[in-house]
């Protein structure tokens, strides 16, 4: 490592002995980190390792850190986000932080709106024109005048990235930017950040998807339990080595799906449709089967799942559970027929952030954990404890507010809530988004086990390896219709991508 040299060595950010303490946790513990101009610096580590916290310190969000920071050779004491932004640090948050009532353009230029001719007024048209140009450069096909609350999670993530890029920063920090993006958008994003890096921007790239890190990073830093474990050029890392450094032990990433005897059809949908979202969707999921549902952004895969679960009911077609036609208008209906679902937007539909971890985890199981309306608190504690251990949830106590957990830990809480009470049909929308490698394998093992118990599982994921690894059959959606279906044996990344992108109907007679 070329530390100790004078500023012209290309180091734009030099952090020394950075420590950030939260009540009960040392989130970042004496971390040294150098970020060089023009490099793409991968940062990896388990959930709760301190990645986001370290970067939030650099973005001026935690004025009570200790340690020294130099930006562009200048020693600085970061006290607020505005100061960090003026020094050229832009952070794209892991958790979506857009204002839903505003448009894409408004969000991108929030706080620095272009002015109109009349003093004091801002120019909407100028903002939209600038946003349009920016989005085009980044290769994002979004209308700058669209309201953000109309956008999908993935689209919002793209807007966040555009916002970061628009700041024209010296250091652009991307905290899990691709967690809900699919292959195509990720490729586009890589093109953009490589372009920025070539022009001298330093990029910090936090991700749990190691293949992405290998594809894009020049150097990688590993954090574990708030400490920096190692920093080295990407050539010196192997995937196994990286995982070993992250979790402190060997771990196989791919969970082998066990052979399960397939049983009767548990979930069937016939000609399901919702105006403007999807149409003519028909498929079956048998007990013991994991059926993957894949599609690009806007293909309607999440919408289909939400219709089956009653979040936004379908307006035509039929849903059958165990061969019986059922009417599902609300999640309550779905649950009463034995259908459960982990929603994609966990902030909005999953977490109750000011309540405790325990309350959040046990929410679904409460019915089973109570007698005559009274919650059996000791059993509840025990069950929650079991889930905490099964998923490796990192928390100070069961009563910690969910808002104070790391991003990936929050995801685990929502997943855990639904795994505590196995239903007949389980719909998982992005079950491992933002979750670290160890827990991912654990979630896969749990899914496998549930299928083994005869559950029907519908798995939605933007990660092809996950879909390919876990699914017995794979359905591919495009433009709101079901494109094609592959058995486990037939499925390859190329074939699925071809159908999802709608290029050809690949390789099927």
């Amino acid at each position: 490592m070329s530390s100790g040299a004078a500023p012209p060595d290309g180091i734009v950010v030099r952090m020394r002995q950075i420590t950030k303490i939260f009540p009960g946790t040392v989130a970042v513990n004496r971390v040294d980190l150098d970020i060089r101009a023009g490099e793409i610096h991968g940062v990896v580590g388990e959930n709760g390792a301190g990645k986001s916290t370290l970067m939030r310190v650099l973005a001026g969000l935690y004025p009570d850190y200790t340690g020294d920071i130099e930006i562009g050779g200048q020693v600085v004491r970061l006290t607020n986000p505005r100061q960090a932004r003026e020094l050229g640090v832009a952070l794209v948050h892991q958790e979506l932080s857009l204002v839903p009532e505003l448009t894409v353009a408004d969000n991108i230029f929030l706080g620095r709106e272009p002015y109109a001719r009349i003093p004091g007024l801002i120019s909407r048209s100028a903002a939209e024109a600038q946003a349009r140009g920016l989005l085009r450069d980044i290769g994002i096909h979004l209308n700058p005048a669209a309201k953000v609350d109309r956008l999908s999670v993935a689209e919002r993530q793209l807007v966040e990235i555009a916002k970061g890029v628009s700041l024209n920063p010296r250091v652009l920090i991307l905290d899990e930017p691709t967690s809900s993006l699919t292959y195509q958008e990720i490729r586009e994003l890589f093109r953009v950040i490589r372009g920025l890096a070539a022009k001298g921007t330093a990029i910090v790239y936090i991700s749990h998807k190691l293949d992405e890190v290998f594809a894009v990073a020049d150097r990688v830093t590993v954090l574990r339990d708030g400490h920096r474990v190692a920093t080295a050029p990407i050539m010196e890392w192997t995937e196994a080595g990286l995982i070993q450094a992250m979790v402190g032990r060997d771990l196989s990433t791919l969970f082998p799906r066990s052979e399960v005897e397939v049983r009767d059809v548990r979930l069937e949908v016939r000609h399901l449709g919702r105006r403007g979202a999807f149409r003519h969707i028909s498929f079956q999921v048998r007990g013991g089967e994991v059926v993957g549902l894949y599609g690009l952004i806007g293909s309607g895969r999440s919408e289909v799942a939400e219709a089956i679960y009653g979040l936004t009911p379908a307006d035509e077609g039929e849903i059958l559970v165990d061969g019986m036609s059922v009417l599902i208008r609300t999640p309550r209906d779905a649950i009463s027929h034995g259908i459960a679902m982990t929603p994609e937007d966990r902030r909005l539909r999953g977490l109750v952030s000011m309540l405790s971890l325990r309350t959040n985890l046990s929410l679904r199981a409460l019915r089973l954990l109570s007698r005559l309306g009274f919650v059996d608190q000791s059993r509840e504690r025990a069950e929650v404890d079991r889930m905490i251990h099964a998923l490796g949830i990192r928390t100070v106590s069961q009563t910690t507010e969910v808002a104070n957990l790391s991003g990936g830990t929050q995801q685990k809480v929502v997943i855990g809530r639904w795994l505590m009470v196995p239903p007949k049909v389980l719909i998982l929308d992005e079950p491992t988004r933002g979750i670290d490698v160890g827990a991912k394998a654990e979630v896969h093992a749990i899914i496998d086990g549930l299928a083994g118990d005869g559950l029907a599982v519908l798995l939605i994921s933007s990660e092809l390896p996950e879909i390919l690894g876990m699914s017995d059959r794979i359905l591919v959606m495009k433009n709101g219709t079901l494109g094609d279906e592959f058995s486990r044996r037939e499925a390859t990344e190329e074939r699925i991508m071809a159908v999802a992108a709608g290029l050809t109907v690949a390789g099927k007679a």
Partner: protein
Amino acid sequence: MNEREVWSRAGAAGGGEEGEPGAAAVRRVSLATALRDYGIYFALVVLVIYFSLAVPQFRTTDNALLILLQVSTIGIIAIGMTFTILTAGIDLSVGSLLAVAGMFSGVFAQKDPTTLNVFLALALPIFIGLLGGMINGLVIAGAGVNPLIVTLGTLTAFRGFIVWYRVNPIYDLQPYYRIIGQGSIGPVPIPVIILLLMTVAAYIILNYTRYGRYVYVVGGNPEAARAAGINVPLMIFSVYVISGFCVGLSALIFTSRLMAAQAISGQDFNLQAIAAAVVGGASLFGGRGKITNTIVGALIMGVLFNGLVMLNVPAPIQQMIIGVIIIAAVWLDGILRQRRH
């Protein structure tokens, strides 16, 4: 709760040389959380000590019981109010509903004490409270109209109704009716006992039942509650019924204590009840609040009123002081909460 339970994984946050910052962090938690969780008790104790030193009459047992008696009416209403606030709602109609319930109670308490009349005098206010709560709840949960608007409407409508029904107060209530508001068991006034029972019941419901959990979850994130299969409209409806029940009970106590039923009763009870909950740290955005803190909030208000009167502070000045204290309490609560981040 038990903040001390430390889970093994987090406990490993730095062995050996790093033990030190970890320990400091833990120490800091206890101070911050203690201030946040018990600051309001502290405030109450400070007030009581101050008035005790400033006015000798303040520290008599009789005065303590008087304060409790005065607090009981508002306290019971504030319990119901806490339920609505926990779901990110509010019930502005409590004062008007109290007048309606009290008036009908008075109508029958005035008549000959036949079994039926006694029964109606005692049960009708509760029933009317429940009915008023159901009206609020139906419109809010069923039609999805904002609770602030709905209860602002019923605040006016209930008051209009009862003034139209009977402007003149009823004073000549039958002597038996006195017992609820003025009687006592040993030295403890019956209203105080009712307040205590209601507090215990609400505490148990909110902390130990599934229903109580759902109240917090619905208030904290209604979308998540719906996605988890909770019947959100039913939950919303129910908290207004609870609020109505509390108002009915309070109306009975209030009318009996004054031995008078008046159409103008309870004019600013809604503000006092909201103030009790909010001073007690309940968040108007829902999902945050404790029943014990609401009661302490009500006690703080009661002690302030009583103490300021004893200090001969003129009524308008009292109002100004109390107004400032409400704002200061909420502001301080916000600061303490932020400190933790």
